[in-house]
C-alpha cells in the first residue's frame, strides 16, 4: 500500500446514495477500495460491476467427491463380508444409493463452506482493525476510497455531495 495514500470512509444512510457515489468514484481520480454494508445490496453490487462468485465450483467438486466416496465406501465394506445376507446381492446399488446421496450432500456442503471461507478470505481481522466503522453493520452503507495525500478535500466533497458522512483514519505506516 502506498504510504502517501489516505483512506476516507463515506457513510450513507441510503443505498442509492452509496451506489451513486460509487459511480462518481469510478469517474474520479480516487480509487475505490471496498464497501461495507449491513446486508447485500443489489444496487451497490450492480454499481460495482462484480463478476459472479466461484463458490459453486467448490460445491460441485465436493458433491462429486461425495457421490463417489459414498458408493465406494459402501461397496468396499460390503465386499469385506463376502456372504449373502437376507438374500441381497453383495453389491446392491439400490440401497447403496442412499449412502451415496447423503455423502454427496455432506461433501457438497463441506465444499461450499470451504469455498465460502477461502473465497471471502475469512476469518480475517485485518479489514476489521484497519478501515472499518461499526455503523456499517447497523444502518449505514460504507464506501471506502483512497486518495493521494493532500487530495482529501476533493474526496470528502464527493462523498458529502451524495449525502454521506465522513470518517477519516489515523494513518500510521
Amino acid at each position, binding site marked *: 500500500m502506498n504510504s502517501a495514500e489516505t483512506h476516507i470512509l463515506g457513510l450513507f444512510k441510503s443505498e442509492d446514495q452509496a451506489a451513486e457515489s460509487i459511480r462518481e468514484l469510478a469517474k474520479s481520480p480516487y480509487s475505490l477500495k471496498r464497501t461495507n454494508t449491513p*446486508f447485500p445490496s443489489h444496487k451497490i453490487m450492480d454499481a460495482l460491476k462484480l463478476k459472479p462468485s466461484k463458490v459453486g465450483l467448490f460445491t460441485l467438486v465436493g458433491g462429486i467427491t461425495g457421490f463417489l466416496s459414498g458408493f465406494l465406501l459402501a461397496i468396499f465394506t460390503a465386499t469385506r463380508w463376502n456372504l449373502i445376507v437376507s438374500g441381497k446381492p453383495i453389491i446392491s446399488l439400490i440401497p447403496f444409493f442412499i449412502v451415496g446421496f447423503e455423502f454427496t450432500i455432506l461433501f457438497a456442503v463441506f465444499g461450499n463452506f470451504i469455498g465460502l471461507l477461502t473465497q471471502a478470505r475469512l476469518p480475517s481481522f485485518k479489514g476489521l482493525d484497519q478501515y472499518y466503522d461499526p455503523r456499517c453493520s447497523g444502518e449505514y452503507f460504507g464506501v471506502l476510497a483512497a486518495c493521494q495525500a493532500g487530495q482529501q478535500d476533493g474526496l470528502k466533497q464527493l462523498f458529502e455531495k451524495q449525502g454521506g458522512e465522513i470518517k477519516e483514519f489515523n494513518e500510521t505506516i
Partner: protein
Amino acid sequence: MSQLTYAQIDQAIINTLTPPRKSYWLIVFLLFCGVFVGAACWVYQIFIGIGVAGQNNPAAWGTYLINFVFWVGIAHSGTLISAILHLFRAGWRNPIARAAETMTVIAVSIAGLFPFIHLGRVWQVYYMLPYPNQRMLWPNFLSPLVFDVVAISTYLTVSSLFWYTGLLPDLAAVRDRSTGLRRKIFKALSFGWTGAHEQWRHYGRGYLFFAALATPLVISVHSVVSWDFALGIVPGWHTTIFAPYFVAGAIHSGLAMVLTLMIPLRTMFKYENIITMEVLENVAKTIVFTGLIVGFAYGTEYFIAWYSHNSIEIEQFRWRALGDYRWGFYFMVLCNTLLPLLFVFKKVRTTIFALFVISLIVNFGMWWERFVIIVGGVAHGFSPHAWGLYAPTIIEYGIMLGSFSLFFFLFLLFAKHLPSVSMTEMKETAHHE
C-alpha cells in the same frame, strides 16, 4: 410487515441480549434440573442394563425410538423454513428463520442422543464407524440403521454449518455494538466479518447453495428414518407411503413447535412488529396443509389394508383402531388432522391463545402417532402367540423429561445470548418494501 428502520431492527434485537433477569435464570436452573434427572436415569441404565427400560419381547422398540423420530421430525421444520422457503423467496419466513434453524440444530443433537441411549453398551458405539480393525469388521451399509447413522450425522453437520453461516453477519452486528469481553468473543466468532462487497458476493452464493442442498437433505433424512420401519416386513410398517408420510409429519410437528417457541419469545422480547400476526398465520395455514397430508396417509393406509385382503394387514389396522392402544390412535387422528383444521378459520388463526394451544395439541398428537406406529407394529405382528404389550418405565419417563428439558434449556440459552431474529434478513425485508 410494518416499515421498520434498520436502526429499529437492530435496537429491538440487540435489546434482547441485555443481561437477563433472575426469573430467567430460575427457569434455566429448573430446566437444568430436568436435564440432570434425564442424565441420572441414563447413567443408571448404563450401570444396571437396558432392562430397566420397558422394551422387551415383542416390543423391542419403545420410547427411545419414539423420541428419536419425534426430535428428528421437529428438526425438519427448521430447515423447511430457513432453506426451502428461502428458495421460494417467501419473505414471511425471515423473522422466524434464525430461531427455527436453531431449533433444528438443537433438536437433531437431542435426537442423535437416542441411538446412544438405546444402546446397552454405549462405550462400544464406535463399532458403528467404518474404521480398519484387526478383525476386519465393517458396518453393514445395507442396513437402514446404518443409513440412519450416515443421514443423521450428515444432517447435524449440514444444519450446524448452515446455522453458523447464517449467523456470521449478525455476530458481526452484535460485535459492533458490544464492549469488553463480549466484543472480544463476538469478534472471534464473527471471523472478522466486515460486510465488504467481496464477502457478500461469495456469501450470497454460498447461502443459496446451502439452501439448495439442505432441501433434498430434509426429504432424504426423514425418509431414511421412516425406512428404519418400512424396510422391515412388519405389518403396519412395510408400506411404501412411509417416506413422504413421515416427511410431511415431521414438518407438521416442527411447525407446531415453531409456534410453541415463537409465541412466548415474541411476547417476552416484544417482537410483535417483527414476528407479526401475518407470519404466525402463514405457519398456521401450512399446518393445515401438512395435517391434511398426514390425514391422507392415515386414510390411504386403511383403504389399502382393506383392499389388499391380507388378513394380517387387516388385523393390524383393526387392532390399531379398536385394540389396547386405540386411544393413541384417536389422539393421533384428532390432534394431527382434525383439530388443526380449525386454522381454516381466520378468527382462530389470528388468536394467540388458540395458536399456542393448538400447537401443543399437534405436538401431543404427533408424539402419539409415533407411538401408534412404532409400538403398534412390534406389539401386534404376524404371530398371535407373540402378541404383547409395552409400557414405558420410570427410567424412560426420566430420560424423556431430560430430552424435553434439554431442548428448552438450550433454546433459552440461545435466545438470550445470540440474536434470536436475523437482523440482516430483517433489514433486507424492510428494504424490499
